[in-house]
Structure formats: C-alpha cells, structure tokens
C-alpha cells in the first residue's frame, strides 16, 4: 500500500475502490507494528485533543506567553451568536473562531495537535469541528477524515516541506489548508480525484505566503493566517465538489510550492527578520534586536 506521489495514491484508490482515508490507514498498519484498532484509537485521541483545543479559548482566562494575542475566539463567537449579520456566514465564522482559539491555546502553553505544525494547528480542528457541528457527522467519520488529511500532509512532507523555516507559511498553513480541503471533500461525498483537486487549489491559493512571526513567536500574524487557512480549505472543497478541475495536477503543485519556498529570502522564512515582523510597529512590540 506504499505510495510516494498523489498519482500513485489515486491509482490505489481506484484499483481498490477505497477512499483516501482507508488507504492511508492501511498504509499505517503496514509501516507500524500496530493493528487497525490501535491506530484508529490513537487517531481518535488526537481528535479529542483537537476538539478540546478548539473550544479551550472559549473558557477565557488564557494568557499567551508573548502577550501578542488573546480573547479573539470569544469575540468572534460573541458576535456570531449575537444575531448580527455575519460577513462570512455561520459555518465559516464558527470555523474561524475555533481555528483562532486553537492558536490561543497553543500560545498559552495548552495542549494541541501539531497538524502538520504547531503554527498551523488551528486549521484542521477549526474546519473539522465547524463542519461536524453544522452537518452532524459522527466522531468516527471525523477521525477517518484525519487520515485523509494525513495522506495529503504525508505527500507534501515527503516531496516538499511542511516547515516554515524551509518553505514559509505556505508550507505550514498552506499545507494544513490543503489537508483540510481534501478531508472535507471526502466527508461531503467527493471522489478521491476531487479531494486532490481541492488540495491543489488550496496550495495554489496560498502560494508564496511568507512566514514572518512578530517577535519570532507563534502568535501574530500566525493566528489570523490560520483563519485564512480554514476559509481557503472550505472554499477549495466547495470548488472541487462542484466538479471544477485544476489545470495543474497535485504532485506538480506540491513541487511548485517547494520551489517557491526555496526561492523565498531567508528574512521571510521564520527568522522574524522580514514581512510583518519587520514592520516598525511590530519591531516596537518585540525589542529582540536591541
């Protein structure tokens, strides 16, 4: 069940008539010494942590280590439930509040699942939990969708990078967004092929996004980048589910993302020396260089 490219994975899905999630779970049974039940159980534990993290910031009283963020998830939620017309609809608004909440939990030394990284840890829980609550998917369906997300993340890790220091934010939030987009597409009944189209769109839409953490901390602009990762995932899933196709296949898009990342100057790859981190107001907040 081994695959190193999206093309091979898609062939496997067609040959076996199985969704991406199932192929990824089978692959894990082959490369690990764990059985199917144990692997499922472990992923279920990760899903529980994600749900707690997504709602953790709604309890309030979280203080981020760097003091640059805090309280955003509560503000978004208060507005959403107030009856005021939302600018992006209930589903996206909810997903954004959850995603930004995970970053609050993360920055206050709470428990999260790096998916694929800590800096992008809000995208998958935010997207998943809002979709689950809106459409009533079971936890089992959500856990299986994490394997779909994992398959996309694995392919990006193997063929490119998920590290901001190597590829910029496009490698972190862009990858998380592609993972979530494919998973949502599978959940809503899309074919394996449609899942790859969703992931490709997600990568393409966030191509070139730089990693520029203010003060070198995983707080801002990371938190709002997670919000864009969530909305991008949902938009790309919707595009793919409508039968719209990309001109460039997934494997090529991954390669493009990698090359764009390598081409980014060092200042824009997690060093906090460029981008938003180097804006005068950001520098005034940080003071590291003094």
């Amino acid at each position, binding site marked *: 069940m081994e695959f190193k490219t999206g093309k091979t994975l898609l062939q496997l899905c067609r040959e076996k008539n199985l969704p991406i999630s199932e192929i990824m779970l089978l692959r894990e049974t082959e490369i690990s010494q764990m059985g199917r039940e144990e692997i499922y159980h472990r*992923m279920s*534990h990760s899903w529980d942590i994600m749900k707690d993290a997504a709602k953790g910031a709604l309890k309030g009283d979280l203080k981020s280590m760097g003091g640059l963020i805090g309280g955003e998830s509560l503000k978004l939620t208060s507005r959403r439930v107030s009856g005021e017309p939302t600018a992006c609809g209930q589903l996206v608004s909810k997903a954004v509040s959850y995603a930004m909440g995970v970053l609050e939990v993360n*920055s*206050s030394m709470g*428990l999260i699942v790096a998916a*694929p990284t800590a800096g992008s840890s809000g995208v998958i829980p935010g997207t998943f939990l809002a979709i689950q609550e809106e459409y009533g998917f079971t936890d089992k369906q959500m856990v299986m969708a994490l*394997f779909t997300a994992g398959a996309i993340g694995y392919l990006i890790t*193997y063929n490119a990078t*998920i590290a901001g220091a190597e590829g910029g934010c496009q490698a972190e939030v862009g990858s998380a967004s592609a993972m979530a987009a494919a998973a949502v597409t599978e959940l809503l009944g899309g074919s394996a092929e449609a899942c790859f189209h969703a992931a490709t769109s997600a990568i393409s839409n966030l191509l070139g996004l730089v990693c520029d953490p203010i*003060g070198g901390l995983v707080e801002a602009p990371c938190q709002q980048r997670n919000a864009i990762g969530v909305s991008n995932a949902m938009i790309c899933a919707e595009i793919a589910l409508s039968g719209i196709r990309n001109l460039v296949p997934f494997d090529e898009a991954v390669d493009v993302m990698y090359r764009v990342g390598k081409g980014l100057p060092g200042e824009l790859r997690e060093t906090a020396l460029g981008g938003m981190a180097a804006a005068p107001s950001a520098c005034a907040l940080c003071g590291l260089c003094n």
Partner: protein
Amino acid sequence: MYSSKEISVFDIIGPNMIGPSSSHTAGALRIARLAANMVKKPIKHVTFILYGSFAMTYKGHGTDRALVAGILGYDTEDKRIKESFRYAKEAGLSYEFQTDREKKDVHPNTVDIFITDEANEETAVTGISVGGGRAEIKKIDGVEIDLSGDYHTVVIKHRDLTGVVASITHILSEFSINIAFMKLYRENKGAVAYSIIEADDAIESSVVEKIEELPSVYQAFLIEKL
C-alpha cells in the same frame, strides 16, 4: 528530513504537544529528557546555556519551562509543562538559564545542558531541536555523538579497547535483540568511547545491567524511544 524512518500519519497529525512551538517547546523538552536519561542518580541541579534562536526567543516559547519539564521526565503532552518550575521546586531540582547570543557557528536551536546529580557528579550534554518536535543529542561529555530517541537505544560508555564492541554485541545476541543501527564514537584512540545501539524492539533493563558487568564498560544507559 526523514531519511532513516518511514513517515507515519502521526508524524503529520501530530505530535500531540503543549504549545506554542514544536521546535522551541516540544523539541526542547525532548532534548532535556534524552539528557536526563543519561544520568542514573537523582538530579540536583541543571544549568542550561541557550544558543541561536533558543537564546533569542526562549521565554515567549516557554522553552525554559519545557527544558525543565524534560529533566523531570514529562512527555510533550503533559499539562504540567507550563508549571514545571513549580514541580521542579517540589522535586528539589534547581536550575538556571544562561544565553549566548554571540556564538554563530551552531545550529539555530542548540542547548548545552550541564547536569549535577546528588553525588555531585557532572554530565554535559549538547542537543539540538531539528524541527517538528524532533531532537538530537550531538555531544556527551565532550565526545561528539548522534542520538535521536527515534529507536529503543542503549548508550554505552566504555574504554576504547579491542574486543569491547564484540562482547557488547555478544550480549545483545544472547538477548535476541535485533540491532537497527550501531555506531561507535570516540575522542582519542584508547580513551573513552561511546557505543550507541538502536533497536526496533524495546530493550529490557537486564540487558543494560549485563553490559555494565563487562570489565571495560564504565556505564550503560537505556534511552527510551520518544
């Protein structure tokens, strides 16, 4: 990035960790935990010297709390990490942090850890955080080594003499341990050497005890798979 090991779905959806940073928090914890594995007696005091990005941003990433938590043996999911200073105090462990922002020829996330145990014996370990929560130990007491905690590992400190490695592998085969990797590191010929054995399956502590009975072995440590 993952040359020696297949990428698991849990490397991607994971690790489960206390934030905020896989490299600066989870990775830092793992370095300290690996270092603490190389000290047998209870640890009394630890001095950490932080370099590169660790030195610049450790407070905002909770790197200091994570390092202390690693010495206490916590895993990356442990909710006590945030309050590790308090738990260290309760455990009678003292610690201090120093930063070196001048040294440039080091990996950006490097820490030197000087451990003093209750018998006042000192152990010096250098570790780096290589991303995604993964850690590597690069030096023990001045000898350059390579240790990741990706496997069940035995670290053996011994005299650099003919036949020592053969007697170690003999014991391993007696216990039917399938070696994945075996590496030998030494500073000078005939002086102290370190053998590092990585295995796929868990290693019992009786193996380590048996290795320590060998005449040319100073100490052997079992390093848990992280």
